């Protein structure tokens, strides 16, 4: 299967590459629009900061291009946030695939640490990324900004408040957590994406 991982100025895209290789897929890490367009599945990963990555995507013509992709696309972490309308991080206009804001976590108690880092549970799972067996399972999160629960939410996690752990609209899927770092549960979610 031809899987493209979009290469841009975001960190930690190699762990997605490794995770797919463990599933027997040899992905291509590329910013070549032709290669990405012809891939059967596209992964839009990312650890980093919203404004500098969006600026990079716009300068390289990747913003319109990603919006126009027709095959299944999976955004991960920052990738998911960049697929929303606007991020409070750097007051950044994003890709607008999901009509939602990205907000910063505001602690309510001393124990509410930001970033939200570690293993947390998925609830109200739906969409073809998640079977019912994934309800209540733990996945790995590292983030300071979140997407509120909205009409595209297909999995919810509670930290300070309930937020979107995953989104889905048409051919666009996205997870706030890192499936590539979420052990067996993450592998199952990645496999479900590859099987779409």
């Amino acid at each position, binding site marked *: 299967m031809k899987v493209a991982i979009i290469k841009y100025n975001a960190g930690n895209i190699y*762990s997605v590459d490794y995770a797919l290789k463990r599933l027997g897929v040899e992905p291509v890490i590329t910013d070549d629009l032709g290669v990405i367009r012809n891939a059967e599945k596209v992964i839009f990963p990312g650890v980093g900061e919203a404004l500098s990555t969006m600026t990079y995507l716009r300068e390289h013509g990747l913003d319109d291009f990603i919006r126009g992709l027709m095959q299944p696309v999976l955004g991960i972490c920052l990738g998911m946030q960049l697929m929303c309308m606007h991020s409070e991080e750097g007051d950044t206009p994003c890709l607008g695939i999901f009509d939602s804001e990205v907000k910063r976590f505001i602690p309510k108690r001393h124990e509410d*640490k930001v970033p939200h880092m570690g293993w947390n549970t998925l609830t109200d799972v739906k969409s073809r990324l998640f079977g019912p067996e994934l309800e209540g399972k733990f996945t790995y999160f590292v983030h300071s900004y979140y997407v509120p629960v909205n009409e595209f939410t297909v999995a919810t996690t509670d930290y300070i408040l309930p937020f979107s752990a995953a989104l889905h609209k048409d051919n666009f899927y996205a997870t706030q957590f890192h499936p*590539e770092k979420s052990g067996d549960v993450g592998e199952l979610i990645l496999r479900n994406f590859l099987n779409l």
Partner: protein
Amino acid sequence: MLAKRIIPCLDVKDGKTVKGVNFVNFREAGDPVELGAQYSRQGADELVYLDITASHEGRKTFTELVKKVAANISIPFTVGGGINALADVERLLAAGADKVSINSSALRNPDLIEEIAKNFGSQVCVVAIDANFENERWLCYLNGGRIPTDRFLFDWATEAESRGAGEILFTSMTHDGVKDGYSNEALACLADLLHIPVIASGGAGKMEHFRDAFTLGRADAALAASVFHFGEIGIAELKDYLSAEGVNVRL
């Protein structure tokens, strides 16, 4: 709900896992990738690999090991040891590490914390602190507990947080290797002081010690080495125990 984390720590020398008792007298305990994979299967939430090799050649071996760990293991892992400059961080992150842990180099050059946070994000930067309780205060040490400094745990942890540390890994030298429990009072003070996660380290001998680090010490994660390496405590049984004791863990 966010789970409390169990973190096996693997000290690596010349490509092999070792563990010291009170920071001296190393005993060998196996192949680091195989051991890490095994811990991951048993339910470890994260792994820490510490490079205790001093040589340049050893650095290269360790970077290769980091690549193998990233390729084979599907949970987050932190690497530490011998990170003195931003270039070291870049090399280890590029090899596939999720976080780096800095200790002596942060004490010698606190600006390094800011540089890492600015370039790679706070979540990447774990500041490890080795401290010993003496003369009624927690004195910080350099070089794996060999050289005392003029800094104290609570001040240094607070400064590290304000400079951009994403987590504090506190090893009590007083408790390390003794297997009589973590330093819960100091951990609770850190929990009160800081707004970032605290990883408890040093002193695990029984399953109750982990529970106490989470309940009395209010730690976010507990790290241990020898009790796991020598099979004295299984991670799966530990997590079952913690869950039964009301601690929220990933099962």
